[in-house]
């Protein structure tokens, strides 16, 4: 990422619109290599129709790290904890208490917690792994048409929209399934298409005449909730992707201007953003699951 001749730009499509360094026309095609931070993850290999992108490789590394970590924790588990176990327990206990403050119930927390904590750790490690030196700067030069493009071998997985969208979909769809299991399909369906509210109008209208105004509003609120679910997907995926991608662009930009010392505060900033974004994503997942599991009562 510290190459002096990196160009930061927003690329609209894959192939054509790569903007070259000013004055590139004077140079021959062989000597000019375009370095850029693209919006998308670059493909590295292709197994048939399945392309392995650099962000997918990063994601695999994260999986491997967590696997090793989990095995390591599993092996060294004792009633009288080691120093490492104490640290892990402190983190898990803190996370559990934080989750309790959202769900307000330890039993409910324990149901959602493994997923939420998994989201947190997965995103956190992906965010931080994207900051490591070498990620984004080690790669190979690929020839595309008449151009030569630098393709990094590794790229932070959360700086790839595919990852964040997959996680967001998992989070929102998972929350809905959890809600159906927790409160029942009919009750859950009425959260969105509030047939109950419409059906109860004739029954209650004599007692409460205002219900003819209130319940149709309730029905439309339910319909808006459907849009809300899609908004959740969009906000979750774009927030994470935007923050992490912007961080990479920022670090590259600073490195272009001043290669030494200057990027250090920004790297610290990105470390904080990495943990904050992971926390936001996992907390929102927790909230979605928690809200989906509560029966709507008004």
């Amino acid at each position, binding site marked *: 990422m510290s190459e002096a001749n990196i160009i930061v730009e927003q690329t609209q499509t894959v192939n054509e619109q790569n903007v070259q360094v000013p004055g590139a026309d004077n140079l021959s095609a062989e000597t000019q290599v375009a370095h850029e931070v693209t919006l*998308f993850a670059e493909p590295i290999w292709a197994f048939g129709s399945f392309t392995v992108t650099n962000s997918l490789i990063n994601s695999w590394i994260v999986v491997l790290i967590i696997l090793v970590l989990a095995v390591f924790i599993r092996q060294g588990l004792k009633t009288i904890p080691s120093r490492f176990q104490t640290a892990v327990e402190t983190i898990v206990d803190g996370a559990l208490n934080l989750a309790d403050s959202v769900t307000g119930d330890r039993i409910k927390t324990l149901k959602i917690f493994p997923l939420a904590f998994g989201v947190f750790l997965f995103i956190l490690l992906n965010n931080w792994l994207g900051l490591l030196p070498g990620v984004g700067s080690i790669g190979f030069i690929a020839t595309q048409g008449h151009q030569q493009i630098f393709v990094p071998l590794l790229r932070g997985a959360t700086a790839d929209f595919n990852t964040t969208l997959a996680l967001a979909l998992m989070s929102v769809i998972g929350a809905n399934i959890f809600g159906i299991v927790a409160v029942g399909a009919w009750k859950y369906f009425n959260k969105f298409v509030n047939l109950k509210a419409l059906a109860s109008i004739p029954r209650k209208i004599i007692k409460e005449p205002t219900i003819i105004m209130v319940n149709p509003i309730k029905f439309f609120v339910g319909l808006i909730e459907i849009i809300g679910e899609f908004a959740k997907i969009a906000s979750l995926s774009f927030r994470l992707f935007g923050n992490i991608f912007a961080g990479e662009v920022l670090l590259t930009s600073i490195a272009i201007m001043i290669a030494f010392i200057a990027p250090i505060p920004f790297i610290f900033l990105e470390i904080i953003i990495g943990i904050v974004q992971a926390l936001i994503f996992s907390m929102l997942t927790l909230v979605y699951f928690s809200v989906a599991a509560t029966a709507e009562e008004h």
Partner: protein
Amino acid sequence: MEDIIKSFHIDWKLMMAQLINFTIVAWVLWRWALKPLTKVMTKRAEEISKGLQDAKTAAEGLEQLKITKQEMIKEAKHEAAAIHKQAELTAEKYRQDTVAKVKAEAEKAVAEVKQKFISEKDEMFKEVKQQAASLVIQATAKVLGKVAAPKLDKELIEQAVKEVVNKSKSKNI
């Protein structure tokens, strides 16, 4: 929508791959790390609370034991004091009894000795009287020679001896 898919290179296969990655992470974390870890933590919390409870119970038992001990000591002291008093009383009574007995015996012995002494003395006087009487008779007989009227003489002598004896008796006693 097309633009988004194109510019972000959205590929459902890649998404599935990432989802699988995440599923592995979540499952592994839950199965190998979080579940056993929370189990251990819960177990330890239970053990600690049980230990604390046990310690509390033990402390209470100890306190109870101390109180019981104190009470026992107090009771024993009480009993010892009572026994001591009783013993003192008994000893005193015994001593008094003994003293009284000894006194009585001594008195008895003294009385006996006195009696004996008196009787012996009486006997002695009797003997002395007799001997004195015969002596006087003999002496008088010697002095007077063959007196004509021994019967008269004997009467005289006996009277004289009686006087003497009475005199000595009054002197002695």
